[in-house]
């Protein structure tokens, strides 16, 4: 596959991610909509959300004008180098910004200047893994600012919360984060949680776990149980979509764990808004999209 073709495929990945929500997310939004009582603001908010999902897909325009931090996770076979992938992806990002799939969203933190094409130090974010498979797998997430701002990291023990260094302590932190977020992260949201790691790897893993399909079950039965419990408990808080009140505060909870040093115990929580823009594909060496990962 030549560089031009790779760039074209990546542009399509960006377009699809920005304009269309994947089916697993839509299914959970539909469930939430059915769950809310009629004639409530929660039901109404879901109605607007559903209409917006439909309109964005039909018009092929961004679901939300904040097209977020661009995070790409790549399983790279040996027919493409990191350098070549990055070059193609950056060109695709530049083009996606010009045609309006992405907003001009990358600002120099010192001068305040907008780069105008979403490129600059740290943007876009690409995580590479090597794979022995023949096809390339790329997953893309557009993580909005409003929801990123309500993410939180806890260091256990946390005496003010009464959270100790165990799964009960983790549960306390996560529910506290949901309560503090209220509707500000454009809920109903999805949580990515990492238990352990250091401060940096904990947050990275909390985002990585948001790449899982919403309807899968955690392979670890202990974490699977905690995910279900936290989802149920969070939905009794009554915060609801947009914080208007209602039965659907979260659409999902995904938890992962990393080893830690004995002295540290971090719990990192990433909040993803309902505009849960992430998609991915498998790309053959010849440049054919063999599979969309969340369809």
């Amino acid at each position, binding site marked *: 596959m030549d560089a031009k073709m790779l760039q074209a495929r990546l542009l399509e990945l960006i377009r699809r991610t920005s304009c269309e929500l994947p089916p697993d997310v839509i299914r959970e939004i539909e469930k939430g909509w059915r769950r809310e009582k009629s004639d409530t603001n929660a039901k*109404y908010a879901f109605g607007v959300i559903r209409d917006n999902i439909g*309109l964005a897909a039909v018009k092929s325009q961004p679901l939300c*004008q*904040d097209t977020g931090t661009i995070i790409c996770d790549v399983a790279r076979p040996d027919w493409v180098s990191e350098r070549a992938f990055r070059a193609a992806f950056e060109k695709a990002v530049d083009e996606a910004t010009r045609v309006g799939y992405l907003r001009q969203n990358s600002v120099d933190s010192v001068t305040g200047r907008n780069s105008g094409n979403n490129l600059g130090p740290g943007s876009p974010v690409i995580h590479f893994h090597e794979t022995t498979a023949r096809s390339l797998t790329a997953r893309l997430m557009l993580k909005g600012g409003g929801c990123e701002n309500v993410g939180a990291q806890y260091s256990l023990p946390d005496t003010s919360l*009464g959270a100790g260094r165990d799964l009960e302590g983790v549960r306390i932190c996560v529910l506290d984060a949901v309560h503090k977020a209220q*509707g*500000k992260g454009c809920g109903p949201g999805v949580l990515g949680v990492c238990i352990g790691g250091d401060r940096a790897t904990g947050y990275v893993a909390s985002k990585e776990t948001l790449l899982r399909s919403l309807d899968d079950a955690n392979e670890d039965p202990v974490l699977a149980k905690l995910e279900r419990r936290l989802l149920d408990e969070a939905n009794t808080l009554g915060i609801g979509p947009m914080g208007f009140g209602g039965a659907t505060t979260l659409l999902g909870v995904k938890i992962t764990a990393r080893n830690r040093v004995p002295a540290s115990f971090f719990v990192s929580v990433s909040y993803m*808004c*309902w505009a849960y823009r992430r998609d991915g594909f498998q790309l053959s060496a010849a440049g054919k999209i063999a599979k969309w990962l969340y369809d």
Partner: protein
Amino acid sequence: MLLEAPFTEEKMRALKVGDLVEITGVVYTGRDAVHKYLHDGGKPPVVLRDAIIYHCGPVVVKEGGRWVVKAAGPTTSIREEPFQGPLMEQYGLRGVIGKGGMGPKTLAACQKVGACYLHAVGGAAQVLAECVTDVLGVHMMEEFGSPEAIWEFRVARFPAVVTMDSHGKSLHASVASASAEVLSRLLKP
């Protein structure tokens, strides 16, 4: 219920937290740069008396010589908390559309001048763009750039929920305290 221009004090005082409104009339976008500029004593390029400000950085493009709104969802309002109350009082603003709600200073100003905070559905950039029927003009484009400029939008049936009213009530405060109670039960050992 319909909330139609002119946005009079009487109409705004009649609204209560939880009311679902559909706004028809002219609204002005304004976000960080505009609020800071006005708060620092800058002269407003539009008449703000009885106006509704929309916290929004829209995506607007020129097509065939006219402005077309491509995306127009709300942005987080709380960033304007230091400015909003004083501006409401100084200019007699009647409403603010945004997302995430605002704090006690703005709530007090709503009470004093007879204004409301109108919460739009965050992320609904396409649905809300469809509610903009006309772009009547743009101000301070040179100074602030497109997303931060003051766009004059005619909107029709723009949906929002009153989450802060002129009677001192805030849905954000009540949902926060009700959910805090549930939380404390969930956390009881």
